């Protein structure tokens, strides 16, 4: 059922995630200001970056679907957005834990980075009711693609707008100066991003395989019932 390259990819992902965890807890030093709490950064930020990237990729796949009219691109777009929403849940929960540990509050409403991510997350939560309220598969795919493109375009615009805003509490990670991370912290952070990206790709392939098999099974059932 799985494609030829899936097992090596899954194995590579497990190794990368374990390596990232090892670097986080046994190589990267504790940050001078926050101490051990800053370790949350290595799971929270890569998850946020990959989730936002997934939303954009979902939009690009939707463009491909509208251009080619190939339903497999709509399915890819759906899976990418679905996975990004799951990672988004992780980002919000780990972010809240970090905020409580570091600022003493689970949520800070006047912090642009937090609120903007919540806005993006809630925007994509609309994707499910929109998609599954349409019964006709062609219309469903087309409308979902239009939504995915519009929302996908909103993600980088939102990101740039937030960076232009003045922030008081939330630190900047990706900047022209390298985010002021020391070498060993930066290496750990990069490995974490690679591991999270690999995890996303592996889970993407896993869900896509399951969806594809499910659709083939449905077609086979219909065909068998028609011949009966």
């Amino acid at each position: 059922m799985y494609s030829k390259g899936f097992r090596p990819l899954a194995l590579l992902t497990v190794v990368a995630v374990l390596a990232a965890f090892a670097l986080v807890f046994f190589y990267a030093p504790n940050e001078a200001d926050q101490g051990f709490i800053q370790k949350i950064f290595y799971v929270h930020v890569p998850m946020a970056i990959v989730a936002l990237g997934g939303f954009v990729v979902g939009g690009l796949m939707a463009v491909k679907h509208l251009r080619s009219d190939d339903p497999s691109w709509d399915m890819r777009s759906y899976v990418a957005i679905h996975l990004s929403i799951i990672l988004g849940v992780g980002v919000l929960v780990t972010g809240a834990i970090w905020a409580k540990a570091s600022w003493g509050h689970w949520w800070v409403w006047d912090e642009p980075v937090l609120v903007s991510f919540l806005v993006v997350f809630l925007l994509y939560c609309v994707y499910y009711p929109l998609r599954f309220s349409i019964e006709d598969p062609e219309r469903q795919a087309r409308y979902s693609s239009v939504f995915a493109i519009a929302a996908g375009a909103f993600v980088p615009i939102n990101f740039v707008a937030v960076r232009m805003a003045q922030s008081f509490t939330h630190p900047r990670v990706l900047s022209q100066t390298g985010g002021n991370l020391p070498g060993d912290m930066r290496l750990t952070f990069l490995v974490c991003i690679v591991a999270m990206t690999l995890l996303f790709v592996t889970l993407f392939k896993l869900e896509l395989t399951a969806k594809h098999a499910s659709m083939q099974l449905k077609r086979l059932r219909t065909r068998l019932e028609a011949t009966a």
Partner: protein
Amino acid sequence: MPALPLDEAGKYVAGAYVVFLTLILIYVAIIGAKVARIEREVSELLDMTEGDPLQREPEEVGQSPTVQESRDGEQSTQRAGLEAPPR
């Protein structure tokens, strides 16, 4: 090598990583269950289409369970061949 403190900060860090791992594990478990269900349904369909020669009447053994020659030479698919054999 930095120590792993299990004080107040350690609980928050552990909580964040447990949330991440739990999310991934739940997701993989759901997809794994789905794949297992698909595999089971595929094997059921295979059973229906291929049939089990040991479960059929002796005179039927040797004939295709789903396709039978009609009198005028045309092939017709039997509905009985698509139903699951008794286990």
